[in-house]
């Protein structure tokens, strides 16, 4: 029994301990535990315990100089051969932070709310080819896929554990705060250290977004499930916000599984499918996606994928930059807008007389 478990640990460590995100199944049944309060035991601890070290100011400067020197020139690797887009190709995704919501208007004058997602310092950390990539599922499709590990947001290397630091030692980029694994077809592989930008997506593309919803803690049935509660008066005492009966007597004489009851609400992974990218800012790496419903509060991390919806999939004639947009090599405009979107620098909308 010990050996398979050890193998499992070593394999998962090899895969950088990040659960496959594309194939995760959303469980809606309330019986299944939907959130963990602690990370799994094999998850590498990222930050070390901090205590007042009272490092003198000269030494502090010295440490900063060393860090600066180490990461001033990223590790140069020979560029890999870039694949071409084919039917059913899967590209790498991006990690972004939700930075707010504001309205935009289309050219016919209708208002829409857009969520701003900042793609903050995304770099490829590792590519795992299909042979090395361990998939627990049995589908053939997933066995053919490799994975690209992407990290976002730099973290101070002095604050992290050695174990976590070693993950980045071959990459040549500063250690990352947030990492994720994206399943890709082998033709979409990317060399480690490749920067990823918001221009990975074009305006008009459709994306799927996964994130963790806002944690609302232990909530009653009215907030959690939208129950109606009970009347404020007419003889009701102490039951104004309660759910009422949860089961019946007779032959059943038990509470049926899946009964909606008070409990922990929020902090669950949620997928939104088929959101349109309306606008891209290539300078600040910001994406404007449709709708205010991107999971999580302002500042939470989300994962952006090409949409899996059958009618939103890319075709060989019209597909986004593959395997990614190399922004350092090509010129690109600062602001990119969708055709239907009214950019603010354009004159006001006027309707023509018929």
């Amino acid at each position, binding site marked *: 029994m010990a050996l398979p478990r050890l193998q499992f640990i070593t394999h998962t460590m090899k895969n950088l301990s990040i659960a496959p995100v594309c194939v995760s199944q959303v469980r809606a049944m309330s019986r299944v535990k939907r959130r963990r309060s602690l990370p799994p035991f094999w998850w590498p601890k990222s930050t070390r315990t901090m205590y007042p070290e*009272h*490092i*003198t100011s*000269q*030494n502090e400067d*010295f*440490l900063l*100089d060393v860090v600066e020197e180490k990461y001033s020139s990223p590790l140069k690797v020979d560029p890999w051969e870039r694949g071409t887009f084919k039917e059913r190709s899967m590209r790498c995704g991006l990690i972004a932070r939700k930075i707010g919501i504001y309205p935009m208007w289309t050219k016919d004058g209708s208002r829409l709310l857009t969520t701003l997602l900042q793609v903050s310092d995304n770099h490829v950390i590792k590519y795992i080819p299909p042979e090395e990539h361990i998939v627990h599922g049995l589908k053939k499709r997933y066995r053919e896929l490799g994975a690209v590990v992407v990290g976002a947001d730099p973290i101070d290397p002095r604050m992290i554990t050695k174990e976590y630091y070693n993950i980045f030692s071959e990459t040549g980029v500063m250690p990352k705060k947030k990492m994720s694994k994206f399943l890709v077809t082998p033709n979409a592989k990317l060399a480690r250290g490749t920067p990823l930008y918001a221009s990975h997506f074009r305006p008009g593309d459709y994306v799927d977004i996964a994130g963790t919803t806002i944690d609302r803690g232990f909530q009653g049935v009215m907030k959690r499930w939208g129950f109606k509660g009970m009347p404020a008066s007419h003889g009701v005492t102490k039951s104004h916000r309660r759910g009422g009966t949860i089961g019946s007597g007779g032959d059943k004489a038990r509470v049926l599984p899946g009964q909606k009851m008070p409990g922990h609400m929020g902090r669950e992974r949620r997928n939104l499918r088929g959101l349109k990218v309306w606008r891209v800012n290539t300078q600040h790496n910001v994406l404007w996606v449709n709708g205010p419903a991107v999971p999580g509060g302002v500042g939470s991390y989300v994962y952006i994928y090409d949409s899996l919806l059958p009618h939103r999939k890319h075709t060989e004639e019209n597909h986004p930059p593959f395997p990614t947009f190399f922004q350092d090599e090509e010129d690109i405009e600062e602001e990119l807008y969708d055709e239907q979107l009214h950019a603010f620098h354009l004159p006001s909308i006027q309707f023509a007389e018929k």
Partner: protein
Amino acid sequence: MNQAEIRKLIPAVRVVINAKHRRFSNPKGPEGRLMMMRKTVTELVKLERVELNYQRGDEARGYAERLIASAIKNGDCHIPTMEMANYWLNEKQLVHKLFKVLAVRYRDSTESYTKLHKAPNKYPGFFREKAVLELKGNPFPPLEPNNSSRNWIHNILLEEAHQEYIKKKLKEEETDN
């Protein structure tokens, strides 16, 4: 409505604050909460160093900072500021202290006026985070002795490493030339 209040122009508080106020339960409601804060602020201005629960100290700290900042900015001839001082200081001789002593003491200060130390709590006993809230520049001996950490082992090792780093750099430059 969902707008920043523009009638008043308030200088930034120089300490970390909570995004929302803490709801200390009080039989008198929100008014009672303010009266409780008032007691702490009065004690702080009077004694300059008070030991209390951390949550209460952290909450009262913001009020004390704002009060001192407005006393510095507006002086004692500004009626709303005087009313505010009158409300927040239960003992009226402290109003003079606020304007004549504290406002003068912190006039050129560029940092916060108060300091909050985490304090140990008694064992065995009911666990509650304790803290010491004090005004900066008070006459008492310091709580955290400012011993030099130069002789600590990691600082000595780092200094040595720094020297080596400089030598290495020099050598590299020589070889380049």
